């Protein structure tokens, strides 16, 4: 009897040779999530707008920012889609699991919009205007990146719908 064929399985955990700097204010955003399960934005003293994630420069006014503003983990869906087709995620080299819903969410107290995943893939149960809340990973599992927010969940259905 010939020797049995020995199989191997290659780890799907594809290494990517990139390392991006998040910066002082971006780092603060993830540190606030871990410490207080809340968000932080930054206010421009010229136009008065609060933007999230916090960044060093207001692009419109082209001036430096330093006034951090705490924001609650709640907001409103202003746009969304349910992704049905598979594709290779260039960040991992792996197929992005579908279906998944991503949405643009206006966090309470922010003037711009935040994008993330919403855990509702039934198009009849999600609508623009619905209220959502961030669901965080347990602090011990947080790694200081966007996946420390697991997803947003719908917390309320608009009356009259």
């Amino acid at each position: 009897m010939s020797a049995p064929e020995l199989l191997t399985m290659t780890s799907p955990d594809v290494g990517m040779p990139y390392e991006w700097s998040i910066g002082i204010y971006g780092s603060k955003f993830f540190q606030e999530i871990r410490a207080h399960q809340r968000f932080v934005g930054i206010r421009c003293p010229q136009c008065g707008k609060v933007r999230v994630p916090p960044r060093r420069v207001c692009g419109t006014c082209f001036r430096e920012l330093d006034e951090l503003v705490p924001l609650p983990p709640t907001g409103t869906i202003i746009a969304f889609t349910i992704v049905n087709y598979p594709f290779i995620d260039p960040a991992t080299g792996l197929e992005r699991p579908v279906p998944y819903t991503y949405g643009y969410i206006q966090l309470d107290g922010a003037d711009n919009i935040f994008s993330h995943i919403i855990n509702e893939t039934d198009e009849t149960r999600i609508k623009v205007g619905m209220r959502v809340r961030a669901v965080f990973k347990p602090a011990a599992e947080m790694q200081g990146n966007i996946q420390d927010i697991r997803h947003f969940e719908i917390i309320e259905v608009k009356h009259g719908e």
Partner: protein
Amino acid sequence: MARRVAIIGTGQTHHRSQRRDVNGREMIHEAVQRALADCELTMRDIDAVVIGNMDHFEAINSVDTWSVEGSGGVMKPIMKVTTGGTTGTSVAIAAYYHVASGMFDKVLAIGWEKNSESDTTGAIVTCSDPIWDRYSYSGAIPSLATEASAYMEKYGATQRDAARVALRERTHAQNNPYAHMHGRPLTLDEILDSPMLAYPIKLGDICPRTDGAAAVVFAAEDVAEKLAPRPAWIKATAVRHTYSWFGDVDQRTGLESLERAAREAYAAAGIKNPAEDFDVAELYLPYSYAGLKWIESLGFCGPGQGPQFIWDGHTDMGGKIPVNPSGGVMSTNCIGATALLRVAEAAIQVMGKGGARQVPDVKTALATGFGGCWWSDVVILGKEKPA
């Protein structure tokens, strides 16, 4: 002061989902030869070349030098310009700047893409911020779908309204022998019954992936008048690129970059009432809902009136302002060439070379470009030489 400039020749490939018979250089060469033939020039007459395609798509860097044997750029001044979806209008506007500056008399603009050789969605995902947006972002189709969801909520527009736009594009494409979707008409029901890709966008609502190239020759006033029986004069161009983060664009408003670019270009070209003043428009509409919302941003009709304007037939051939006689982006999408095709097709209409897709007696034509992070370019062409 900028010199007067006109388009004197255009060329494009017969667009297909896959061109296995040519490599990228050879495909570019087809479009360049057709553009030169259109204005009866040879490559020796061309003073400079501007070329572009999508970053990351075919995984070939430095396409300006890689492609010189096809583009004709050997030992000529050549520049690569790449700005995502607007690449085609960027190469056109950069070529216009070259000539308007007075430094070059005859400049060739080239856009191309071999989508069949690219990981299109993966490449587009890399245009999103790696720290904040990339985890949830999923390429062009879902990104556009989010805009549609906000527009539908605001104005009550329906999937059927969008399908009517898709029907127009596919119907017009049957008049354009170069269109990828030439010979493949669709009915309204077929569009509505097509598979859902990313709610509310169905297969019938979105552009295809195309292999193709386009080339356009820009010339200075004296050269243009000598060479072309009816040059297409550049009346105005405008560029508005807004993105810093996806979340900084509010989808509850009109497409602000297009509104601002249009305002500037209309003022420069003396356009007061766009639906009346333009005889034809070649618009970068990558998906059907853009054909509802973005014509509002262009001022063809008021906010929320896009669906009625479309159903009334104003944008069909024979309508008040025919949109995309070529079949548009939803019928051909070789992305780096796509916005240049809008400029080329608008020029074709002004020059009266449109054949079965020609709108009668075009004096003023509008072309637009659109790029992934909600930015816009506008180009206005005319039969009359600008003052």
